[in-house]
Structure formats: structure tokens, C-alpha cells
């Protein structure tokens, strides 16, 4: 049985989304900027997609929701343009973010540090989240922007975005949230939550890859990242990617319709899987309170089983999962999220992430439980941590000298 449990990395495009996109490749292919009928033929579909986007996050008509090529672009746009607007051409010099942001935020912040910007990387607690009071204590009068993710990709843990938004509003500091792991998974209502900018990505909620969006509260100033033909009201140039815009609109509509029901259905399967693994295996733990986690995510640490080895065995069993293990990365660096949580050093080497979707079935969950347990027992049989015969005198391992 093929089971894909890596939905925090990307998702299957919903066939209903593909169907909605299809006419805009070879039938209605005109450039929406053209005056003729071929260009304007796509306008109703684009308008519909825009409406779907606004409705899904409950944006006001005074706000902008601008389509981008991906959330990486949206994150780069906010950080670099706030730098230009408020730091290069303003009195500010400081950005607050967290140490467990997505690389599209962290790497951009490192780039801005090279340009002379001060960046504070807030630590997370043992639940893997940044607490609102921590954010408050690091905002200064020089702070231009606070950029904090809504939910974390590795742990699924949900940050107190509403509280942080209120603090930023009170302090008069711009607030950006990378909501890639939140939109389509949990309710995101921007009439209740105050954010100035919000990034999202279609392929995380069963839309196509290569399209994202940036929400901009009350159409406020933000220098464009991409200059050109003044598309999207001059905010983001580049010929409108019509089929993908239509697809993103359709995908976000499906994902957010009756989202509470969808969440409950996914959470039921997730909880069943998590309970089975926790009760069926010894020496395992999961990260983060379930009630404050996206309903599809499990990050589990399995003592004595190295993450890449576990991923290998799961892959052999046709199960797709993810690991933050250093051994599975190009540079042998342990995953920064795992290290930041700091609950257990071993987590950086043994963490396996299982992320479900609304397409995950009960039969798949049963299959994963069975194969997961057999992979653990095979690898533990090999593992030195589970050896019976102890080393001879003087043969025991030294303390770990590896930098973490």
C-alpha cells in the first residue's frame, strides 16, 4: 500500500482543483491584461478566485490579497520591502523573528543582517512555540517588523498569533506571519486576528505548486519586490498565472469550507495513529500538546532508532514521511527546530514527522501502524542502544563531543 504522510512538505492536488484549472491552459489562455475578448475571457474566473481567497481568510475589501509565485516570494517580499521602506528610508533598524522560522524567513533575515539590520531570533519553549510575552519584551522603538509563523512545519505547533498581533498593534510595529502551515489546516480569520502581512502557499492545501499569496492589511505601503508591467494593481508584476490562480482559489475554498469538520476528521485519524504508536512502542514520545497542534501532524521520537534509517525502512514499506535528523541533510546539520525545542538531544537524531491530509484513509493508518512498528523493531535489533551484551571494561562510549 502506498501511503503518503508528508503533507506538511506538500500535498496531492485535489482532482477537483485540477478540473477547475484545466480550461485555462489551452482553451482560455489569453493574457488577462489584454483588451480583447481572449484576454478578458479569464476575468470572471480570476475574480472568483480572488473572492474565494478573501472569503477563506475573512479579509476585508480594503485589504489586498496579492498572488505570488510561492510563499518564499511572499516572505522575501515582506522582509526585504520593510527593510527598504522602514530601515533604509526610515528610522528603524530592528526585526524580531523566531529561531524556528522557515528558511525563506531565516535566510532572508541573515541576508538583512549582512546589510546591517539588527535581527532578534526569539527562542521557543519546550512546546516549541514562542510565548506572546517574550515577543513583547523584545520589541523596541527601533523595531520595524515582527515576523512569526502561525504554525510550525515540523511540530505542527500553533503560535499565539492573536495575542502577538495585539501586542504589535499596541506597540505600533508591523506584524507579518508566515501562515503556510495554518491556512487550510486551521481557521484563519483576519477580521479577528490583527496581522499586517500574511503569507500562504497553495500546495500545502491541495492546490498546485508554484503559487502563493500575500495578504496586506488595508492595502498599506509595501515596495514591490518584482517590478515590471504593473500587474495586480502595481503590487506584483508578472503575467497573471491564470490556471494556478484559479486552482489556488478552488483549493482554498474546499479546504476552508466546514473546516471544523475537516479538522475533526483528520484529527481523529491522527490521534488514532499517535495513540497506537505511543501505546504499541516503548521509549517513544511525541512533541507538543495535541490541542495546540495542527490536526494533521505528529512529531515522534523513537529511542535507539536514527531518523534516516527509520525513513529508509518506511520508504521500503512505501510510506513517505520526513525526518529532521542531521544524517538525512546535505550538510549534516541537525534540524534547527529540533535543536531549538531542546526537549531531548536525541530528538535531533530520532525525530520522525508524520503529516496526514484529508485524503488519508483509515486503512492507510492501520497499515502505517503495522509497518512503523516492524521498522522500529528491525532497527532496534541492530541498534547499539538496545544491545544486551555490555561493552568490556574500557570499551564504553565517550561523552558526545559533537557540536549541537
Amino acid at each position, binding site marked *: 500500500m502506498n501511503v503518503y504522510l508528508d503533507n506538511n512538505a506538500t500535498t496531492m492536488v485535489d482532482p477537483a482543483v485540477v478540473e477547475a484549472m484545466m480550461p485555462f491552459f489551452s482553451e482560455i489562455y489569453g493574457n488577462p491584461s489584454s483588451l480583447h475578448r481572449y484576454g478578458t475571457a479569464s476575468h470572471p474566473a480570476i475574480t472568483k478566485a480572488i473572492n474565494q481567497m478573501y472569503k477563506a481568510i475573512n479579509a476585508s475589501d480594503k485589504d489586498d490579497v496579492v498572488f505570488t509565485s510561492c510563499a518564499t516570494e511572499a516572505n522575501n517580499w515582506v522582509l526585504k520591502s520593510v527593510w527598504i521602506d522602514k530601515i533604509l528610508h526610515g528610522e528603524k533598524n530592528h526585526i524580531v523573528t523566531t529561531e524556528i522560522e522557515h528558511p525563506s524567513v531565516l535566510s532572508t533575515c541573515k541576508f538583512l543582517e549582512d546589510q546591517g539590520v539588527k535581527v532578534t531570533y526569539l527562542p521557543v519553549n519546550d512546546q516549541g512555540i514562542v510565548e506572546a510575552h517574550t515577543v513583547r519584551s523584545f520589541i523596541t522603538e527601533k523595531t520595524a517588523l515582527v515576523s512569526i509563523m502561525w504554525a510550525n512545519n515540523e511540530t505542527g505547533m500553533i503560535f499565539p498569533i492573536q495575542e502577538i498581533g495585539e501586542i504589535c498593534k499596541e506597540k505600533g510595529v508591523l506584524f507579518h506571519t508566515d501562515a503556510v502551515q495554518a491556512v487550510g489546516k486551521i481557521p484563519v480569520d483576519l477580521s479577528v486576528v490583527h496581522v499586517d502581512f500574511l503569507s500562504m502557499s497553495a500546495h500545502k492545501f491541495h492546490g498546485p505548486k508554484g503559487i502563493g499569496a500575500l495578504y496586506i492589511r488595508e492595502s498599506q505601503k509595501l515596495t514591490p519586490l518584482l517590478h515590471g508591467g504593473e500587474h495586480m494593481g502595481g503590487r506584483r508584476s508578472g503575467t497573471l498565472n491564470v490556471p494556478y490562480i484559479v486552482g489556488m482559489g478552488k483549493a482554498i475554498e474546499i479546504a476552508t469550507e466546514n473546516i471544523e469538520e475537516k479538522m475533526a476528521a483528520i484529527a481523529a485519524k491522527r490521534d488514532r495513529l499517535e495513540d497506537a504508536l505511543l501505546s504499541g512502542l516503548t521509549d517513544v514520545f511525541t512533541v507538543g500538546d495535541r490541542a495546540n497542534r495542527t490536526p494533521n501532524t505528529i512529531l515522534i521520537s523513537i*529511542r*535507539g*532508532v*536514527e*531518523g*534516516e*534509517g527509520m525513513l*529508509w525502512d518506511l*520508504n*521500503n514499506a512505501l510510506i513517505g514521511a520526513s525526518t529532521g*535528523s*542531521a*544524517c*538525512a541533510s*546535505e*550538510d*549534516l*546539520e*541537525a534540524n534547527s527546530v529540533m535543536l531549538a525545542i531542546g526537549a531531548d*538531544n*536525541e530528538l*535531533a*537524531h530520532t525525530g520522525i514527522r508524520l503529516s496526514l491530509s484529508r485524503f488519508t484513509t483509515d486503512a492507510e493508518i492501520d497499515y502505517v501502524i503495522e509497518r512503523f512498528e516492524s521498522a522500529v523493531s528491525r532497527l532496534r*535489533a*541492530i*541498534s*547499539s*542502544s*538496545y*544491545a*544486551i*551484551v*555490555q*561493552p*568490556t*571494561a*574500557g*570499551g*564504553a*562510549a*565517550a*561523552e*558526545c*563531543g*559533537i*557540536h549541537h
Partner: protein
Amino acid sequence: MAKNDLLGGSLWDQYSNKVTTLMNNPTNQGEITQEECDAAGHKLIVADFGAESCGDAVRLYWEVDPKDDTIVSSKFKSFGCGTAIASSDMMAELCIGKTVQQAVKITNIDVEMALRDDPETPAVPPQKMHCSVMAYDVIKKAAGLYLGVDEASFEDEIIVCECARVSLGTLREVIRLNDLKTIEQITDYTKAGGFCKSCIKPGGHEAREYYLVDILAGVRHEMDVEKMQAAADAGGHGDFETMTLVQKIKAIDAVIDESVRQFLIMDGGNMEVIDIKDSPDYIDVYIRYLGSCSGCSSSTTGTLYAIESTLKEKLSSKIRVLPI
């Protein structure tokens, strides 16, 4: 970075078939018990290397025949990624049938070579070379236990890059002979630092005793010192024109002290060297007269001529002396 690097993430595709086969079915995985060894009259050695909190830990079991030090059986346990399991398995395999003294000669490179499908293609991607190093370390530990000696005694040189087994001596020599200036050049010449990268600078995957950045800086510093000493030595042999500015000032001062200053002092005066300016045709020495010399009519004629001719004779015909 070029066409072949555009699509990353194919880590597992770079494993050899032997590696994947052993990852799936390690043949020497397991333990050897004291009872088994006692029954055969053999000695049991169990050695650990690494730690689970590091992400790498391996345990090696040897059953050794004490009559001839032959490793009769060898098994392993590994907390580690797939390549660590495959490397450990091959390491255990290579030990079987060898004497302990022969086994100590097995290096991580032997293990990696044995895992190759064809001799020209690496068995694992560069960053995974690190996994096979553990195999080498645990063998030394086991041999140390069996022979009752410190495992450090098996290493007759300091290995800086364990993945490529490049010694401190080799690195220092290659940097010096080839006038290497960057870490990239060192990796190109020696392969050191091209695998797990721990040895390049502090803060990598593993803490090291020696780092390439420090070795490079040290050797470069030694080379600079030598270069300056060579220049100073050359200056001592009268090659005034190639001296550094400071050396020139010292040389001039020495000549003046020896041949000029005493006559000036006798007349209640003195002089000092202010600056030296080099041009293709001249070396201009700017001086200032002190005491009764300043204002003395001879200071721009006879005395000046005497100073200039002395310096020309002793140091360089290009010298012009200019009082200010």
C-alpha cells in the same frame, strides 16, 4: 553549481547497491556472548564508539583466538543512519579472519572502497563518508582493549581530516609547497574538508582537535615570517634596494651612527632620518638637522655632501639626501 546541481535531494540515489543491500540486510549484525567465547576458549572484546546523543554510535564485538590473535567472529550493533549500518557491517566483515594486528590497519577508506560497486564510483555521497570513520575508530578501540594498550598508540601521525585520512604533516607540507591560500584550494589538493566538513572550522558536525582554518593561518604566518626573515637576511648582505622601508631606515641609521653622527656631535649638532621615498631613479632620504647643525652654512654643502657620499658608498648609488 551547474546543471547537475540544480535538482538536489537525491541523497539515497548516490548510495551504491552494496550499501543499500547491507542497509536492508546487514549480515554481521548481532552480538557475541561471553558464553560462546568461553565454550570455544576464545576471548570476547566489546568496544563502543560514539554516542546516541551525537547521532552516531557503534558497538563492535570480536571473538579472538588468543593462540594466534585471529578474529574468529566479528559482529556489530549500530545506532545510526543507513550508511552507518552498512559501513559497520562491512567493517565487521573485513575484520573476520584477520589478526588483531592486521585489523588495526583497516581504515575507513578500505571500508568505503569495499562498499563500492565499481572501483571508480564512491559508495556514498561526500557527507556520508563520515559514517565509515566510526568503523575505523571502533576497531582501534577494540584492538586497544585486546592488546591492553592505548588506542592512540596505533596512530603514528595526527589525522586532521578523518574522512579522507589526511594528516597534519601532509597538510602543512602541501600548503607550503603549493603556496595555498584558501580552504577550497586545500580541499582540491588533498580532499581534506571535502566530506563531512567537520575539520574545516569549529562548529561543524563534530568537534575536532585541529581545524583547517587554523592550520592554514598558522602555516601562512610561518611563511610570512620566513619571507621577512629572508628579506632581513638579504638586507644584511647589502642588498639595500630590495629592503623594506623599516630595514632601509635601520640600515641608514646604522651607517650614520658608524660614520657620520660622531662628527656632527663633535660640532654640537646632530641629525635624524625623517622619511625615505623610493622612485625608479632615486632613493630620497629626508633628514632634519638638530642642534648647531641647523642653520650651519655647511649643512647644505660640505656636510650634506659628506653624508650623501657615505650613504651612496655604503648602501646604494641611487641615494639622494634631502634636508628639510
